[in-house]
């Protein structure tokens, strides 16, 4: 069940220009949170910005959790100004999170840009339950935007890097790297990043007979199933099921459920 908790900022560090990690003390949230879930963070005291900001839990500890984020606009700018010792209101845990199943032969994480923020916790959970470290494809526009490489390596994950400009790892898209890793039936691919990257990644995975889970993003007001603002179109035909809410039906969906044809990529953030 979600809670609204005033969390103390434990540490707050800029990892690379415009990319931050904040650790928040919040036992009520941390004790219930699962990898892939998120919190709604109140960044402003006043009304600009008015809404909370959705942020995934990067890692979940016994009584605290971390969030990895990149500067985007006013909300993340205000967030970046919080100092250790200050309190910040978080609503969570929200969303469904990743299912963790041990009966699959191979797990491949495909992260695009800041989409990586949801995966360190998933890797930890997979290691705990399945006893094998997932493989990780880390992709970003350029070298500076590749996050968590060291974290995954320390967990024992095999990491494949890719950048659009070739400044680190392969000059390739995440989906192309995945293709070369030859996913097959029995493989589960987990993707998070820009919508277009998730579409391509899921196409590669599904064509190879693998499973694919995607963690979607959408503009949110409530984060909790009420406002109906965060929907994406699903392949369900019926009027009542066509729109799926990213916040509470997801954010993690079976890629086969998402109607990629109907999605208008021109509007993506």
């Amino acid at each position: 069940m979600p809670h609204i908790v005033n969390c103390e900022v434990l540490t707050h560090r800029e990892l690379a220009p415009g990319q931050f990690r904040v650790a928040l003390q919040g036992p009520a949230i941390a004790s219930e949170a699962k990898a892939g879930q998120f919190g709604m963070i109140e960044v402003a005291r006043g009304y600009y910005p008015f809404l909370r900001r959705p942020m995934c839990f990067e890692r979940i500890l016994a009584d605290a959790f971390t969030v990895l984020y990149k500067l985007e606009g006013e909300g993340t700018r205000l967030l970046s100004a919080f100092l250790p010792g200050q309190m910040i209101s978080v609503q969570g845990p929200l969303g469904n999170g990743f299912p963790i199943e041990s009966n699959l032969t191979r797990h491949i994480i495909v992260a695009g840009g800041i989409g990586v923020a949801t995966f360190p916790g998933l890797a930890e959970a997979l290691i705990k339950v399945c006893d094998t470290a997932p493989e990780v494809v880390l992709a970003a526009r350029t070298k500076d935007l590749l996050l968590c490489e060291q974290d995954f390596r320390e967990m024992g994950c095999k990491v494949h890097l890719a950048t659009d400009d070739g400044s680190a790892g392969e000059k390739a898209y995440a989906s192309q790297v995945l293709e070369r890793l030859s996913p097959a039936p029995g493989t589960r691919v987990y993707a998070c990043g820009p919508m277009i990257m998730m579409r391509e990644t899921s196409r590669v995975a599904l064509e190879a007979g693998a499973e694919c889970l995607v963690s979607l993003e959408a503009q949110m007001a409530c984060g909790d199933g009420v406002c109906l603002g965060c929907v994406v179109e699903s392949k369900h035909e019926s009027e009542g099921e066509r729109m799926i809410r990213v916040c509470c039906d997801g954010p993690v969906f079976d890629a086969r459920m998402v109607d990629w044809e109907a999605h208008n990529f021109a509007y993506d953030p």
Partner: protein
Amino acid sequence: MPGWLTGKPTISPMTPDLSINLGGLAMKNPVMVASGTFGYGQEYDRYFDISKLGAVCTKSLSLNVRAGNKPPRLVETPAGLLNAIGLQNVGIDAYLREKAPYLRKKGVTIVANIYGHAPDEYVELARRLEAEGAADAIEANLSCPNVHNAKLATGPSMVSQVPEQVAEYTTSIRSATKLPLFIKLTPNVVNICEPALAAQEGGANGVALINTLLGMAIDTETRRPKLANIVGGLSGPAIRPVAVKMVWDAARVLKIPIIGMGGICIAADAIEFLLAGASSVAVGSMSFRQPDASLRVVEGVEAYLRQHGIPTVSDLVGAIRV
């Protein structure tokens, strides 16, 4: 900060009377939640006891399930948000089957908000809600900016922009139900008094002011509108002064009570609406940020009454000093 702003009660021997009678609807306090910002109640019952509210207003219900508009449907703007949900809702059958029983069990006072394409659809909705005991009052949404009304010209147009239509719809729904009937009006008009008076003449027991203000936002990089629907409805603190003014305008000509809403976040905001002439208030978009904002408003209004030695909340209605 004074107690009435923070919601922390200051000690006073008198217990103020918060209860009201809103056009025939008995409410334990004047605070409800606005349609579309509180789901069907159950969602936010996880955060606080929703039966402590004066009433819960449901998402607009239609005869059939509606998927709503294409995404993106939401964009944040300064001190508020634009939405173009397009009345996605579970439909009346699922409401009666799955949503109303929960609210009844909780002892919630239910205002069922309804939406239809024509008067006969509103009539059927009101009849079924009354027959099944699934509402204590009806709020007819004649003001959704996000669905096209074929009867009117082009663009987003709303029944309540035309006073004659307000009268026609209100009269029809009135004849179909004995439940208290509130008409929800759009602020996108030249003179709010005209549709408000039309609702009164049609037999409404109250009007709900205001629905969202039409607006739009454009992405300057892509040159695209930020909403797939191009335009949407603006809500949140950004619209509060407009809403207060409309309530004040309408209160001076109406005999029936007003449910005031538009950007209410804390008790002081609600009191502003009461002073302007609203008998009841609804917390809308603020619930997205703070699910229990409405309960804090109830507590804050009570604290204000204590602090100012005002015996009943009705004493505040229209008590602006001009």
